[in-house]
């Protein structure tokens, strides 16, 4: 009897890239719910425009490159990029800016380098950074979160989200509904020589724990991230190192001067901390690849974000921190090759 031959091994576990990507999307669900409850349905609008744009850009890029688009559209990676960008941008952003950012993320962040697996930078952060430096006003205008209290209602927030999405002028009707993020307000306050306790005592910035609005989103992202860790999609090295890189210096600085330095709890539960630690920095394509390398990579992101938050020109610093550390990945990878069995280090 004759048989076909093929090289060993003859069996595989059957894990797939789409499984990885859709697990990531699933794990974003808690943070998404918190986002919608606190900031209105803007996230859903941004998600839809980003997803459609991302799929179109991916298909177009693959067509231009003469590749088959179908498997790439099914692998889910571009939807992860779109979702991470949608989570990062303000929910009030006009739709064309969301579309522009997503298209740039997919085309400039991913396909100019050769598509899936080839991009040195995190595509979502490429898109976000371009938007942030090009449209600073739009990119820093957030709805006042629901947990601030006061007069605003969720249906009104929803109407404003749609208006913002279509690009209407929000200042007239919804002036009291928009503002800077908590981190931004703290930054500005400290710049005007307020002390941290004064700012946190104001009520519109600090909540039960962490800051208003973002604390809950961070908590939900933490829950989703822990889920990814239990499913072994994400390993502990990068999240722990990101948090360590951010929280250790903030613990020390807060100990030295609690009047102006944000403590570790505030740092952990504000801005994009948990989203970055578990979802953005952990993008394996643009991260360092060995366990030891990932510790350095994550710690670098946390530390740079802390430096930007403390002294930089932007309220949150994670997008730039991630991009800067992406740049350092080949260097880190070069010097963190683990010892091979039977060889001297």
């Amino acid at each position, binding site marked *: 009897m004759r048989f076909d031959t093929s090289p060993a091994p003859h069996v595989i576990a059957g894990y797939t890239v789409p499984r990885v990507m859709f697990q990531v999307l699933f794990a974003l669900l808690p943070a998404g719910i918190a986002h919608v409850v606190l900031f209105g349905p803007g996230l859903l609008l941004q998600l839809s425009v980003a997803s459609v744009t991302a799929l179109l850009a991916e298909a177009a890029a693959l067509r231009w490159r003469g590749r088959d688009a179908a*498997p790439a559209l099914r692998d889910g990676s571009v939807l992860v990029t779109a979702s991470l960008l949608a989570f990062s941008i303000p929910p009030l952003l006009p739709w064309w800016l969301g579309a522009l950012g997503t298209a740039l993320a997919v085309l400039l962040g991913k396909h100019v380098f050769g598509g899936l697996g080839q991009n040195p930078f995190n595509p979502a952060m490429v898109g976000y950074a371009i938007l942030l430096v090009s449209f600073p006003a739009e990119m820093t205008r957030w709805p006042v979160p629901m947990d601030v209290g006061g007069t605003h209602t969720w249906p009104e927030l929803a109407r404003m989200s749609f208006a913002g999405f279509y690009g209407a002028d929000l200042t007239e009707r919804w002036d009291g509904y928009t503002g800077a993020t908590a981190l931004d307000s703290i930054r500005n306050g400290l710049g005007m020589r307020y002390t941290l306790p004064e700012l946190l005592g104001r009520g519109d910035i600090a909540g039960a724990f962490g800051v208003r609005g973002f604390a809950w989103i961070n908590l939900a992202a933490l829950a989703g991230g822990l889920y990814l860790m239990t499913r072994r999609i994400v390993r502990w090295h990068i999240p722990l190192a990101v948090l360590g890189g951010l929280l250790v210096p903030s613990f020390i600085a807060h100990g030295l001067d609690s009047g102006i330095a944000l403590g570790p709890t505030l740092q952990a539960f504000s801005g994009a901390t948990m989203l970055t630690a578990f979802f953005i920095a952990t993008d394996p394509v643009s991260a360092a690849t060995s366990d030891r390398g990932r510790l350095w990579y994550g710690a670098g992101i946390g530390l740079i974000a802390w430096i930007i938050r403390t002294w930089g020109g932007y309220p949150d610093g994670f997008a730039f921190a991630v991009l800067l550390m992406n740049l350092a990945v080949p260097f880190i990878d070069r010097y963190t090759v683990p010892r091979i069995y039977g060889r001297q280090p």
Partner: protein
Amino acid sequence: MAARSTFPAGLVLDAHKQQACGTPIVDLPLPRQVALALDQGSGYGAEPVVAVGAAVAMGTLVARTDYPFASALHSPLAGTVVAIETRAAAVEGGRSVCIVIESNGSDRIDDSIRPVADPDSLSPEQLTQRLRDAGIAGLGGAGFPTATKLASARDRGAQTLLLNGAECEPWICCDDALMRSAADDVVRGALILRRAAGAVRCVIAIEDDKPAAIAAMTGAIERQRDAALKVVVVPAVYPQGAERQLITTVTGVEVPADGLPADAGVICQNVATAAAVARWATRGEPILSRVVTVTGSGVAHPCNIRAPIGTALATLVAAAGGYRGTPLRLIAGGNMTGRALASDEAGLTKAMNCVLVATRDDIGSRLGAVELPCIRCGDCSNVCPAGLLPQQLYRAALADAHDALRQLGVRDCIDCGLCDYVCPSQIPLTDRFRDARRRLNAAEATAQKAADARERHELRTRRLQETATAEQQAFESVRNRARQPGDDAAGGKS
């Protein structure tokens, strides 16, 4: 005694062992014909010492060798050599020169086969030579000549004989069956091997998913009352049975990458090899047969069979109830490292521990694999038992970057297949690395040839130059002498 795995990573795989392991070992009736491949799995062949037409008995030497990596072959049948020709064989490339012997129905044993009177009276060197003559080779899957390992263990002063009964690869259970049914033989052979290797200790390592084998071996050892003989239970983590990985689990010492197990003070032999040594000692029998697992969803009654070396795999499958369903692959070995064969006419070799007849149920995951780009997730490096970064090696292999391949340890890959197994992009990494290694070897050989040629050319040029310079100097000295007005002129005058 139980040990923890200390080599990097590894993975628990679906064992698929219960299929073949439920029934006792089947003794195959002598087949009508055997085809003995000159290469029995070590990659190196012996030389035939019989001609077509020669009459042979059971145990007659039919191929000998002085080469340390090949092993002698003996006829498992009484009959006639009917052909010496290239045939389908279970070796690299799928074909090998085979000595084909046809049975005459008798069971006449060669006169040279006599029980070894007193193996304990032989010196380690004599023992080693006798084992080499008996064609004893690693029955665990490598087919490496036992005598060669023994000699190098003595030279390097290895103190521990490690008997490998881990049997980590899915589907395979012939060693398990052998340990359960012939534990005393395994121990007897182990004691002989220990003496031949000049070792003082013997450790028998068995994975913890084989409680019956552990009990049988422990019982056999207790009957020996030898304090330097013990069973170590190791975790059933693939690839626990890989030589270097097992040594590290049992001793905690790593074998140097460019060295031999003996450099870590250990000589490793398979339990089946030890049982074969015991057969040699009690009956004087060279390796004429082995126990092989015949299993897979493609055979009717999976079982372990003791069969003569050279038995056609088709005969083995028939003995296991024949093919069932739609067999897609015939694999010599297990599903992780086994070699897929093109024909079931190939003969059983000393190195073949398993015949896996795989249907879609067994290998569908690989057949249906859709390869996507690597996303550097690192799942592969998390399981690599050699501590490599397959994701980085893969990039280096794609770029054919030789320095990177060397530095990242493409030659330290043990071909276990785990990186393939876990890869979510379903990239056939192991095969890419084998290919990269071949290209690297070829490039290095070419570079070496070029360097040799350059050196030859440079030396030749220098020699030519030296000759030319010498001639020039000789000419000049003669000419100068001729021009000197001294002797010649004076001579002319005189």
